[in-house]
């Protein structure tokens, strides 16, 4: 036996006597009996299964998570959690988690210690700032309070103007459009509605627990639910009527319904006269868009269009055309923004603003700020943004609070953006054209990814910095709008399992100090949270103990105060006109159309499933098993079209676009418009670090080219025509 001294992993001065004393604990049965007796503590926090951050109660025993339930005092969860929340709890104990900081060396990663990683990142950021200026640096994230506060503040401290979110692949259209029409993005009071039209929105699968529950309540109370969607989705399954529209033509339907309401004097003339500007222009614009005009475009009979308009108007003001999210028009078509403007306009014609069952304009509890004398805000950067958002000649109307990560990838390829920090956000997988997105990330001099897992974006980073899971970290206080608002925060419910992880605020403060801007971060997270709570008269201790607290928010009964230039609903937008677009909504066709002459030509559309959050949850086996059990990753195809192509249920097919060819199995169904094929959006992970999701299913993003909608700059994720053909066995 070699005499070499080896490391002893269990440092010890262990003696036989000590061992004998501890002998009972050595036996797992004795230990288990002692554990059994412990009390279960209930610790409030926020879910992270999706961005809704519902209130969650973590039941903890002996420092281990034991069960989760919904927090009754959170405006979104209202005591309920969805399946994804129960899946997200798996993340805490996931062996795929990143256990320590990593540094790229050539084509692989090596572990690095925190201090060295932060020193090197700071030095490289300094080098980029010195060589290219702060205009070449960006921060991108899934926008919630912690990232928005620390990430944006850090960018401002560096003078960097470009902070981006995932929204350009989600709902940028709505944000821009409703800003123009209402000055803000409204919600909808589904629970009290008598008539609900969902256009592409699908609360039964695109779940926000409270919203889904409100839809169910409305139906129980006898509301009529009309689902306008090329696909008979899960909301259509509980609807009064499914209107299978041709994908990309929602705008034509809306214009024609407005035509009917105006021509037949069905709109709320009093509301329009008092609270809107531009009605004459709108009326003139929609005159040409009759139901007969819209019928061949939308594939909906003119009589149906006219009937829907009349029914909606008959139910006013306790009715709503849902303001939508991504589905239908959020970031999907060339006419997305225009469609959202038309949704805004039709609701105004119905006079439903702040009426029971109509659009809602709730505020959120007003949070405080750190005292300016002790913790002054860094000045707002004055340089032009690096992603083209808000820039004349590029995307002057694109909302700058969201930005354009897919355009940023192009700018990186052009050498204009040189360094980026990405947190809890996976643009490489979740924006179209992965080759384009990867080329952008690879072109950077420095990419730092802060996440819990080795995502497709993290794989390309120069440094990967691991955060604790959402159940092991405390975050910035959030305020949720609602008739009753909610103030809430994420708390640490169990001790950190992975010691060598650091929270986002810790990482940013450490970088800021190294880069000479520590003066903007001279406070603790507790001090920040206390300052945010101060105007509400709630102490931090109280919020930590309760997790979510409902607070009265000033509810304006009747007409809300609108932040449009005129203070009224604006059917006509000077800003749009100035930027060279329609002043009032008018018809814009989709950018591409399937070729009627080609029997295998389809538009590829996509949507959410109730048990996955985009591609972030496919690695959770509990949720992935649901997919497997139901073959739910398959491509939907209309039964008639499938028969014509000789494709049977379960057949493997090739799906080809101008960008790529992929194989997938088919679900043959009557529940889809014949011109579309549909794929659920939660699959297609290709990072080997996601050991269970890697290689499972197909992502639409593999097939959709990099493109931009002219108004808001979004990624036009359903503007893609594919050819489908049998792939053999």
């Amino acid at each position, binding site marked *: 036996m070699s005499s070499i001294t080896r490391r002893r992993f269990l*440092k010890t001065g262990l003696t*036989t006597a000590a*061992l004998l004393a501890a002998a009972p604990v050595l036996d797992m049965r004795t*230990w288990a009996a002692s554990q059994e007796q412990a009390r279960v503590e209930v610790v409030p926090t926020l879910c992270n299964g999706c961005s809704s951050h519902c209130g969650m109660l973590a039941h903890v025993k002996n420092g281990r998570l*034991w069960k989760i339930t919904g927090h009754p005092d959170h405006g979104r969860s209202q005591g309920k959690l969805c399946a994804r929340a129960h899946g997200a709890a798996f993340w805490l104990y996931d062996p795929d988690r990143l256990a320590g900081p990593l540094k790229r060396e050539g084509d692989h990663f090596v572990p690095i210690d925190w201090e060295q990683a932060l020193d090197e990142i700071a030095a490289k950021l300094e080098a980029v700032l010195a060589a290219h200026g702060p205009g070449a640096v960006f921060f991108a994230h899934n926008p919630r309070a912690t990232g928005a506060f620390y990430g944006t503040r850090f960018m401002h401290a560096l003078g960097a103007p470009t902070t981006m979110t995932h929204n350009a692949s989600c709902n940028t259209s709505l944000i821009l459009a409703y800003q123009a029409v209402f000055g803000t993005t409204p919600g909808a009071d589904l629970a009290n509605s008598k008539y609900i039209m969902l256009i592409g929105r699908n609360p039964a699968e695109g779940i926000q627990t409270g919203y889904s529950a409100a839809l169910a309540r409305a139906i129980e109370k006898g509301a009529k639910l009309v689902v306008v969607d090329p696909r008979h989705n899960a909301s259509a399954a509980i609807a009064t009527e499914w209107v299978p529209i041709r994908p990309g033509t929602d705008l034509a339907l809306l214009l024609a319904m407005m035509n009917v309401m105006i021509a037949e004097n069905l709109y709320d003339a009093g509301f329009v006269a008092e609270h809107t500007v531009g009605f004459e222009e709108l009326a003139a614009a929609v005159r040409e868009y009759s139901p007969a005009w819209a019928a061949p475009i939308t594939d909906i009979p003119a009589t149906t269009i006219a009937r829907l308009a009349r029914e909606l108007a008959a139910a006013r003001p306790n009715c709503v055309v849902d303001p939508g999210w991504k589905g239908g028009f959020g970031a999907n078509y060339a006419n997305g923004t225009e469609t959202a403007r038309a949704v805004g306009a039709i609701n105004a014609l119905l006079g439903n603003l702040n009426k029971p069952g109509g659009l809602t304009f709730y505020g959120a509890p007003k949070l405080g700020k750190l005292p300016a004398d002790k913790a002054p805000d860094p000045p707002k950067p004055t340089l032009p943004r690096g992603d083209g958002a808000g820039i004349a000649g590029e995307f002057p109307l694109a909302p700058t609070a969201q930005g354009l990560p897919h355009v940023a990838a192009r700018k990186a390829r052009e050498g204009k953006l040189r360094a980026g920090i990405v947190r809890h956000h996976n643009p490489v997988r979740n924006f179209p054209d992965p080759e384009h997105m990867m080329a952008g990330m690879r072109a950077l001099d420095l990419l730092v990814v802060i996440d819990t897992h080795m995502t497709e974006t993290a794989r390309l980073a120069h440094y990967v910095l691991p955060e604790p899971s959402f159940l092991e970290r405390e975050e910035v206080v959030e305020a949720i709008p609602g008739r009753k608002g909610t103030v809430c925060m994420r708390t640490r419910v169990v001790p950190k399992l992975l*010691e060598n992880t650091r929270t986002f605020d810790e990482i940013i403060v450490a970088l800021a100090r190294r880069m000479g801007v520590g003066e903007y971060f001279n406070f603790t997270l507790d001090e920040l949270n206390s300052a945010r709570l101060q105007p509400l008269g709630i102490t931090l201790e109280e919020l930590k103990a309760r997790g979510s607290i409902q607070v009265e928010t000033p509810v304006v009964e009747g007409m809300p105060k609108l932040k449009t230039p005129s203070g009224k609903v604006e059917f006509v937008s000077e800003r749009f006109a100035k930027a060279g677009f329609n002043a009032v909504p008018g018809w814009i066709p989709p950018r591409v159309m399937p070729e009627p002459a080609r029997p295998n030509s389809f538009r590829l559309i996509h949507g959410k499933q109730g048990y996955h959050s985009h591609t972030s949850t496919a690695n959770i086996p509990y949720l992935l098993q649901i997919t497997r059990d139901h073959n739910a990753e398959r491509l939907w195809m209309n039964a008639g079209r499938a028969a014509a192509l000789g494709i049977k249920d379960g057949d493997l097919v090739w799906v080809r676009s101008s960008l790529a060819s992929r194989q997938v199995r088919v679900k043959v169904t009557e529940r889809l418009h014949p011109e579309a094929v549909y794929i659920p959006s939660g699959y297609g992970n290709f990072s080997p670090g996601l050991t269970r999701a890697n290689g499972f299913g197909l992502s639409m993003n593999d097939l959709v080219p990099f493109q931009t909608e002219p108004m808001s700059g979004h990624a036009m994720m359903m503007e893609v025509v594919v050819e489908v053909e049998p792939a053999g066995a």
Partner: protein
Amino acid sequence: MRKASQAAERLYLLANLLYEPDLATCQAAVTEFGLAVAPEEILRAYWQTFVNPVGPRLRPVESLFKPWTTFADCQLPLARQKGWLGGDSAAHLRSLYAALGLEVPPGLAHTPDHLALELTLLGLLLEHGTPEMRATFRSQHLDWLPDLQARAAELDVPAVYQQVLELCARAVAPEE
């Protein structure tokens, strides 16, 4: 006594091969176990088997090979599943180390039931414990090695580490 401490030394050496081995450890292992590879090759194989952060890797952690908990009142969906960190075995060993005043290296703190630690503990029990203690520990915490070996074969990890796992399995076999 001498035999026990020799057996313990072999366990410590195997433990060293399973967590951040250095060249001297690999050299010692080549000599001790007659491994037919260069020590440098073992280092490379270690990285490929256990470290590679972007690929599937072998995690020699007991929790991953056993249902997460046997406590009936746990209502997490993962409660009865295998494949998750921080299971009963980890919780038990964490308590045990605390009771014995044993200090775990920071890199292994989240996996108190890592095979390197379990081999070390068995070594300590050989040096300081009783046959009953070792029998209890073996039956409760070292019964998962066949599953680990099967997983290693499935992942097709380098042969030298399949061999090391076989040596581990033999080293933890019940005393005659």
